Structures are given as structure tokens and as C-alpha cells.
């Protein structure tokens, strides 16, 4: 394959050319309630060409028929030449890497019978249904894939990457008359079959939570001191800050650059944030990004101060910084754009525990789990799976519909305590941006305290 791509590269008349080819083997099993929805094996494949000419823009082509590759190189070049630019697009210098990067398959999913995958999911799905007859519906899914990705560019890069992924998730719907609640468990790993064998108890827990929420009141709206559990704190930092640190948001916008000037204070000294695409064994981990740049651990906030951002080669060149290995595409169907990998809030002092965070809170909310989050940069949402009121320094009653409204400049700066109990939260799903969803990412955080945050609801 590499030879075939090298051949096409040679034929390109563009100043810069990159070619990617992807072949993905995947299988999927899904249950809805007691019924099996599907059990399928699929193979998907296609190619991607991107070229650049001096004084011109990007020319891009994606296609499923690999026979078309030479033709697509020509067409991408024509498209590039149709886009005239006064200020040329430059790419930051990058070493041309060659070689094979094969991630640990940890039990190659291609060698496991579909019937065994069905059996595994049936067990997890059954565990949720067995919790109560009030669990009226479930949605369970198992999905695995092994992706082979070839990448070459006209600067000499030539890479082959083997990327496994496995995701198991389940939603339990509890119902009593008109009241409907849900619990959600989701495990996503850049690993294989061996790593998803032992999650039955987690699935039971979420089904029980859906039942418990049937009796829980909605949280009252207003501003509270809020403790985020590890999972929600991870989603929080992804939405609150991760997206703003993606340099494609600032590189063409002078006002945004000013707002995000390196050296600006965004938080108290307790806050340290980074993105680490090279962390071992996580879902957002990749040896190389989709421009052939090695991934790395990039510090974004150090002791409350903005110190870095995430780059593609284009954004790095424009801002006079270095590529960070964050140019990613969800598949050959899309061009790489600046994305997160494994984003984290670093742990606070060792020994600082959850109890230390709540002991002086008279009335607050302990927000747990994550149904999701979304950002509009200054303002963002992060939706908890459930929550508890905190009363007089103690965790009190369960509450539901806990959705937090964040503001970049106010919420980050109000993080005043960070526990030492850091964990990576390896969820399924993924991140969406520019029509590319779901991109595998991981978030990691300890328990985090926000002095005051807005929660929606009746007031």
C-alpha cells in the first residue's frame, strides 16, 4: 500500500501533497430492551488527498473507490489552484516520520466470534434489566474496530498505524407512570476484547440509579458552590477550556488572539490543565496525528496561567508556535482539524480528599457523571447524570436534571480546591466539531470544587 501511495505522490503536480488511506474492520452488536437489534460485521475503506500550492488554498478530495486515487490527486490539485489567496497558507516545519506504529490489540477483536460479542453484551444488558421491573427499556451496544491507516506526504513522511478501539455502553430507562429517568454507562478504550470483560457491576449500578432518580426532586435553579466528580470535571475542562485552546479558533481572529494571550491568568494557582495524546493506552491516544506529527503532552494552563495551545501545522505556522500533534480527522471522509486527545485537570495536593472539599459548604450541589457538554466558547453547558445536595458539609438527598451553565472567565477562576484523586474517564461517545463526530477522546480529572456556578431549574 505504501508503494502505491508513494507512486501517486510522485505523480502529483502540487507543491505539497498528502495522501491517507484507511481500512476499518468493525463489528457491532446492539440490544434494545430484551431484543437484539443487530449483530453485524462491516468493512469500510477509503482515501483522502489534500494538496497545497503556493498562493493557493487547500484542495481536498475524499473517496471510497481507491481505484480513483490518481484521478483524485489531480482533482485536488485543480481545486487548490481554483482558490487564490493573497496571504499564503504556510505549514510549520515538521520532521518527516516514517515507520509502523502498531498499538496493542489486547485481544484482537477480529478473531472473536460475533456470537461471543452478543453473549457479552447480553450479560451487561441483562444485568440492567434484572435490577427492577421498573426498568422498562434499555439501549445497549457493543462496537469494536481495528483501523489500518496509511499516511504519506510529499515531504517524505510515510506511516502505517494500526488503531484498535472497543466501546461498550448501556442506557437504562426507569419508568413509573409518567416519570421517566435514565442511567448511562459507557466504556471506551483504545484496546481490544480482553479489556471489556468485567463491567457487569457498573451496568447494575446505572440501572439502579435510573430507579432511584424516579423519586428524586429536580434541582432548584440558582447559583451554588458545586463539587464536580471526576467524570463531570473531565467533561467540564473539555468544554470549558479544551475547545478554546484549539488554535484554529484564534489563529485567524485578532480579537480572539488577544483574549487568549499566552501568559493571561484564567484560574487560581491550584489549576493545571493539559492535553496528552501520547499518554499510554487511552482512547484519545495516537502515536501520530493525521498530519504525521507525533503526539505529545502539551501544558495548557500552569498554576492558573495560560501557557499553551493545541495546533495543526497550519495554525502553528500562523502563530509562530510548534505543532503539537493535534490535527485529527474522524475518518478519511474529513480533513484533519485541530482537536483534543486526552485532556486533563492535573491532581491537586496528594492527600486532599473529597471530604476536604465539602466540609465547609453549607448549601451546595455535588454533581456527578456526565450526559454531555457543549460550548459556545465563552458560555458552555455541562450536563450531570445525577447529583446530590450538599447540606452542612455533608452529602444529602439525590437530585436530578442537574445542568450547569459555565462561563469561561468566571467559572474557571472560581475553581478553588482540587482533590488528589485523579482518574482518567474512559468513556465511549466522543467529541463533535465542524461536522466531525464522534472523535475518540478521553478526559481526566480529580474531584474539583467551584466556589459558585449556575445551575438551571425552577427558581
Amino acid at each position: 500500500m505504501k508503494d502505491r501511495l508513494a507512486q501517486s505522490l510522485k505523480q502529483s503536480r502540487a507543491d505539497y501533497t498528502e495522501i491517507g488511506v484507511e481500512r476499518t474492520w468493525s463489528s457491532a452488536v446492539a440490544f434494545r430492551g430484551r431484543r437484539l437489534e443487530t449483530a453485524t460485521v462491516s468493512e469500510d475503506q477509503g482515501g483522502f488527498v489534500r494538496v497545497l500550492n503556493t498562493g493557493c488554498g487547500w484542495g481536498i478530495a475524499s473517496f471510497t473507490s481507491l481505484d480513483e486515487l490518481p484521478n483524485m490527486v489531480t482533482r485536488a490539485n485543480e481545486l487548490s489552484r481554483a482558490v487564490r489567496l493573497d496571504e499564503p497558507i504556510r505549514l510549520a516545519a515538521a520532521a518527516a516520520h516514517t515507520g509502523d506504529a502498531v498499538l496493542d490489540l489486547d485481544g484482537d477483536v477480529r478473531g472473536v466470534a460475533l456470537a461471543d460479542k452478543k453473549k457479552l453484551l447480553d450479560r451487561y444488558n441483562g444485568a440492567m434489566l434484572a435490577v427492577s421491573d421498573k426498568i422498562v427499556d434499555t439501549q445497549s451496544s457493543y462496537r469494536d474496530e481495528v483501523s489500518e491507516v496509511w499516511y504519506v506526504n510529499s515531504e517524505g513522511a510515510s506511516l502505517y498505524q494500526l488503531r484498535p478501539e472497543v466501546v461498550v455502553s448501556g442506557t437504562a430507562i426507569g419508568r413509573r407512570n409518567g416519570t421517566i429517568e435514565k442511567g448511562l454507562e459507557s466504556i471506551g478504550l483504545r484496546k481490544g476484547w480482553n479489556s471489556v470483560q468485567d463491567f457487569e457491576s457498573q451496568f447494575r449500578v446505572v440501572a439502579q440509579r435510573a430507579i432511584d432518580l424516579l423519586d428524586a426532586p429536580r434541582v432548584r435553579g440558582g447559583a451554588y458552590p458545586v463539587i464536580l466528580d471526576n467524570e463531570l470535571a473531565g467533561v467540564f475542562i473539555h468544554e470549558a477550556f479544551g475547545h478554546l485552546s484549539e488554535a484554529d479558533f484564534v489563529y485567524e481572529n485578532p480579537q480572539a488572539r488577544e483574549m487568549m494571550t499566552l501568559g493571561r491568568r484564567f484560574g487560581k494557582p491550584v489549576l493545571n490543565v493539559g492535553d496528552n495524546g501520547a499518554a499510554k493506552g487511552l482512547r484519545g491516544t495516537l502515536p501520530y496525528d493525521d498530519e504525521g506529527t507525533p503526539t505529545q503532552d502539551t501544558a495548557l494552563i500552569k498554576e492558573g496561567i495560560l501557557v499553551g495551545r493545541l495546533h495543526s501545522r497550519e495554525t502553528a505556522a500562523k502563530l509562530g508556535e510548534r505543532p503539537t500533534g493535534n490535527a485529527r480527522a474522524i475518518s478519511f471522509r474529513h480533513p484533519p482539524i485541530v482537536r483534543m486527545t486526552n485532556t486533563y485537570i492535573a491532581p491537586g495536593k496528594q492527600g486532599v480528599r473529597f471530604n476536604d472539599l465539602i466540609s465547609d459548604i453549607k448549601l451546595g450541589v455535588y454533581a456527578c457523571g456526565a450526559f454531555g457538554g457543549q460550548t459556545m466558547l465563552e458560555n458552555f453547558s455541562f450536563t450531570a447524570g445525577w447529583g446530590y445536595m450538599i447540606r452542612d458539609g455533608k452529602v444529602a438527598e439525590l437530585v436530578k436534571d442537574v445542568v450547569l451553565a459555565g462561563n469561561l472567565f468566571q467559572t474557571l477562576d472560581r475553581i478553588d480546591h482540587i482533590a488528589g484523586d485523579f482518574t482518567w474517564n474512559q468513556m465511549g461517545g466522543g467529541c463533535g466539531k465542524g461536522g466531525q463526530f464522534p472523535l475518540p477522546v478521553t478526559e481526566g480529572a480529580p474531584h474539583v470544587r467551584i466556589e459558585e456556578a449556575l445551575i438551571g431549574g425552577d427558581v
Partner: protein
Amino acid sequence: MIDRLLDNARGKVDGADALWRREEQTSVAFESGRLKAAGISEEAGLNLRVLANGRMGVAGTTAAKPDAKELVARARASAELGESIDLAFPNPSPQSLSPIPTFFDRTANASLAELIRMGRLLVERLAQPGCQVNISVQREVADTAVGNTAGARGEYRTTGIGVTADVTRIAGDDVLMVYDQYVGADLPTNADLEALVRSVETRLTAALTVVTPPEGALPVVFTPAGLAAVILPLEQALSGKTVLQGSSPLAGKVGETLFDARLSIIDDPLTPGRPASRPVDDECVPSRSTALVERGTVGRFVYDLETAARAKTQSTGNGRRGVFGKPHIGYTNILFRMAGSAAAPISDLGGGLIGDIADGLIVDDLIGVGQGNVISGAFSHPVGLAYRVQRGEITGRVKDAAVAGNAYDLLKRIGEFGRDGRWLGARWSPSLLLEGVSVARR
């Protein structure tokens, strides 16, 4: 392609249906007012479903030269694990397919230069100091063929074009993002593009002043874009799938009046000029419109073949399938219809509904829609773009506020329907004035 595949399946399985689709997209992207990239994408795929020994299986491929035998074998292997289902493939007469225009030569033939011209026009019209303007123009031409072993065949071509305008204005630490789009099967006219410009400008101008949000149970105008959070629970609950699963709050409520008596909602695959329109669904069922809610009364749920078979009813022609996976229920075009609204249309922000509001909001965008416990009807979201209304006038944009409510409670009594009905993607609706929406602030 379809014929060869179905011929291959005959004799090996009890029945089969298949979809073949080829899509070609051409797109241009303007970033910060500059044309930065032009791209094409070509994709073709084949999806097969079989019934073997009463069980259902599926397989799909994007291979350039699909191996029919291999695909049938893979679908049969999938069926061995599948559930049993009593599913009959339809065989409608070709006359029963409504001839609707889904393909527009002007769209299919538009040159790259024409797409660039449209983008450039928007960039020039929207440019203003301190604002970053991103525009994308994307044109799609697709061929679809569906067929089954009962003898049904359907073929059609579609065109679609999407033009999006994103304006970001950063002033100090204030970030304002305004977005709008044109989506159609036919090319936008200059008047359509001008309407897009006006829509973005109106909402941008009204947002320049930031005011304190109100607090309490208030009247809120949800614009067609802002309505997403209120409509999403209904879309989930009206799906025959959630009804079958027992998780729809509307199950067993057909014929009951649960919403404002002026409100009707239909799913209509036959609206001319819309990209989601089609003569036949992805399972060979002829398209027709379905009254989901009729004058406040729960009408019909939407079904595909499988859920219809399980519910012992007919498919409503809402079968949708991709290259991979099995067919599932999908809406086509969702249209709001209001009884007794004859007033002349306007494009004012708020749809003419704010005159009587003493203190309240116009909500145009909420953050995190779809991420809560949607099916319950409850929603709670920070505002993305919202305006305060005081004594019948827009006084400015509000930030750091959150709105919450329950779609079922709020739609029981609609304050008023706006006169600003419009398409937004595959949904047509006006603004709605809803009373008693919870607004929280910091």
C-alpha cells in the same frame, strides 16, 4: 447493482431488501472572510438486509466492486444471531409513488465558481469590523436505488445545497456567536441569500448590548432555532420504536388532546424543494405525509417496516438506512401547522410575539440540547443566544442565564404562534410564545 445483489440472495434466504446510494459533494470554505479550501467527496455504498429462517440480518460495504456473494454470506451470518421477525417486504405499484421534484439541474450543474460566488457575496455583505465571518457552501448530488425480493424497485436522484454563515464577534472578554443557514434542494436565489444576511444582521445588532437577565417563571419566545429543545422530546416520543419499548410518554395516548388545540405537526416527505423529500423510503415504502399531532391531539406514530411488524401496524414510510447497520426510523420534513393563522408573514426577531411581554426572553439558541433526560420532556440549558424583552421591546442580549421547563407542560397552552415561520434544515416552524418558563441567573 441492486438487481445483481437481490438475484444472488434469492434461494439463499427467505427474502431480502437493499439500498444502494452514491453521493458526490462539492464544498468551499471561507474562513475569516477568505476562501481557504475547496473539496470534493465521492462515496458509494450498498446495504443489504436478509430474512433467513425468520430471522433478520444485515451487511454493508463501501467496496468499489462489491462482492455480492460475500455480502449475502455476511448478512446471513448476521441473521443467525438475529431475532425472529414476521416481516413482509412491500411491493407497491410504480403508480403509487408520488412524482415529486427532488433533483434540480441548476444545483447539480452549479460550477465551483458559482459556489464561490455565493460564498463571496455573503462574506462581503456580512463583513464588519471586529467580526470574524466563516461561510461554507456545500452542494450534494445523490443517486439512490432501493429494491426487494418481492419485486419492488425505486430509484431517484436528489440534489441538496447548504449555505452556512457563522459570525463571531469578540470584544474584550465578550464572545458573541451568530449562526444561520440556507438549506434546500434548489440553489438559493439572491433574495434567499439576502434573507440569510438580514437574519444574521438582525440578531447580531440586537445582541450588541448586554443586559442583566431576568429571573423567575416568565414568558419566553422560542425562535424556530431556539425551539429545538422543546421539539426534541416530542420527536423521540412520537417514534414507534420508543412506543414499542414502553419508554414513550405518548404511548397509548393516540386520540388524546395533550397539546394546544391550534397545534398540528406533520411529517411530510413530499414537500417540494426540500433535501429530505423523496418518493419512496429506504425500504421501498411509498412516501406519504403523517399527521403526528392533529389540532392538539396525538395522531400517529412513525414506523419503519420492522417496528410496524412488531406493533402490528403499517410502516409510515419512515424507514431510513445508511451503508452500515440496519434500517431504522427517521423523520423526513417536520412541519408545524397552526389553525387560524392568516396574518402576513414577517421576519422580525421574535416573530411579532413580543409586543405584550412585560418582562421575558427571546431564546434563539440553547447550549447542550439533547444531552439531558430528553424523553421525559424535561429540559434545562444555559442560553447560547437570548435577548431580554421589557415592555414589548428587545433591550439587549442576556448571558449567564439558564432556561428550564417541560415540553409537555409548556405545549399544553401556547401563548401565540409567530408570523415568522421558516425552514431550518428539515423543520418548518414559526416562533412560539410559551408561558411560565423557568429562567435562572447567577
